[in-house]
């Protein structure tokens, strides 16, 4: 089961200088949780996850609190946390560069394991250095039953 057979070749990507607003729109419109960042020559630069994106707009110390069950709202924080400075970030400010992409010749089983280890919904697939597709947990499901693609 090669990745190339099941991955999606039709995907949206962003450039390193794509602004946050555009990234937000893509997350909203595509419903995806991972966007690849690629350079002009088609090489992969990194990925942006929706979690990393959202985390920018949450106060840092939220990690220190075990649970937010007891909160109703964040009071003054609701007005201040979406600051101008953070809205002006671009893709490369928040992308992850430490993710090893998969090769399209590798197996779907490896893709499933990698996604599980990383806790991600989907991951870029490369051929040579070029970004050629994205494989998701959904694609892995399709591979398991060898169903027809869309």
């Amino acid at each position, binding site marked *: 089961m090669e990745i190339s057979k099941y991955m999606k070749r039709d995907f949206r990507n962003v450039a390193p200088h794509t602004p946050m607003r555009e990234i937000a729109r893509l997350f909203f419109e595509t419903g995806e949780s991972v966007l690849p960042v690629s350079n002009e020559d088609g090489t992969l630069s990194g990925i942006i996850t929706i979690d990393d994106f959202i985390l920018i707009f949450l*106060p*840092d*110390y939220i*990690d*220190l*609190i*075990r*649970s937010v*069950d*007891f*909160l*109703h*709202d*964040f*009071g*003054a*924080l609701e007005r*201040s946390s979406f600051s101008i400075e953070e809205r002006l970030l671009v893709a490369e400010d928040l992308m992850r560069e430490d993710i090893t992409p998969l090769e399209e010749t590798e197996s779907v089983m490896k893709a499933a394991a990698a996604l599980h280890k990383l806790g991600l919904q989907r991951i870029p697939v490369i051929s040579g250095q070029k970004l050629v597709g994205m494989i998701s947990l959904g694609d892995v499901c399709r591979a398991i039953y060898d169903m027809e693609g869309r």
Partner: protein
Amino acid sequence: MAPGTIAAISVFILAYFFIISEKIHRTKIALMGGVVLIVFHIITQSEAFHFIDFNTIGLLTGMMLLISVLKETGVFSWFAITIAKKSGGNAWKILLWFSIFTAIASALLDNVTTVLLIAPITILIAEMLDITPFPFLVAEILAANIGGTATLIGDPPNILIGSATGLSFLDFVIHLGPISIVVLVVTLLLLKVIFRKQLTAGNAAIRETIAGMDETKVIKDPVLLRRSLIVLGITVAGFLLHGWLGLKPATIALAGGGALLIWSGTDIEKRLGEVEWTTLFFFMGLFVLVGGLEKTGVLEFLAGRILAMTSNLTLLCLCILWLSAIASAFLDNIPFVAAMIPLMMRISAALFPNTEGLDEAAYQVWQMKQAMPLWWSLALGACLGGNGTLVGASANVVIAGFSEKTRSPLNFRNYFRYGFPLMILSVVLASIYLLVRYLLAG
């Protein structure tokens, strides 16, 4: 001097130098220093084990186990949210009651755990109120160290002093409790004046936000909470009565920790994983290092020189108080106190010799009662001194770490402006207290 003596002193000085410089973790140095003393036959292995004060180790371990279960219950968050709601969004009232809560919790538990649990909620609430968390965090550092001063288990210097002298938990509460309360009250009143601009009353929107918090949601397991509080209550009662029961504080702490481990049905691996082994091994190494120094006789020599200068108890007490306060403000107070204790033991024995022909046990008790002002001076100086700078105590460092995630992080300079003068004031108050209660009366 014998070569062994020179070697022991060299190892001690070198180890303390590295501990103070903080380039390598203090536990690694203490352990290695202790081992070096054995490897070079300066002390034997059995002597080394003999030097380790297992009363201190047991007390720390027991309390760590108890706290590791207690903190799971959410009781700290519950108190914090309840206090915030009762304050109606008034920032000064929140600061006041958070500080009092921190002081009480630090007196009964350890300071670091207390601030680990209270500081995140404090930051959140301050931000919800649109107030900088800075005044709250400064107040909590001060309150944690002042609260810790009041009891035998509140702060490591007190644990060391209590274990070495045999002074009881009740002795600490009776002698250090009153001055701790005075220092806390004065400190909080001054903070109210100092931060009057930041500490506003809060408007209707803020009151609504605060009122919207639901403290019942933080208690995930009411049964565990009830059991933890019952065990904590019995343990504290045990501490108050340990002298009367003829039990050491370590026995009380381990009994409490052990009982809660069984009654809570908690996972033992997880609980033992939360025991702060670095702290325990630091103490063990330190005991061996100081033990090596004791064996050389250099402490007798130093005690003799000090007593040759003055044998005036008042002067000695005030010197110890101020020296420990200044030292603890800039350096780790645990190694300082660990080294001071055997030195002071010798000074105490020389000041209060056994002239009545009492048997050894009775004489020890009598001597400790006579020497109490010396020990209270050391405890007050070492504990209150921790408030002087941002590196003065572990609780300060923890809060500083949390503050990095806020809009106004604490740093050495901005903390020093408030912490150091308030620390000096607290030591002035402690000096007056010692003079009035112990030194001038006689």
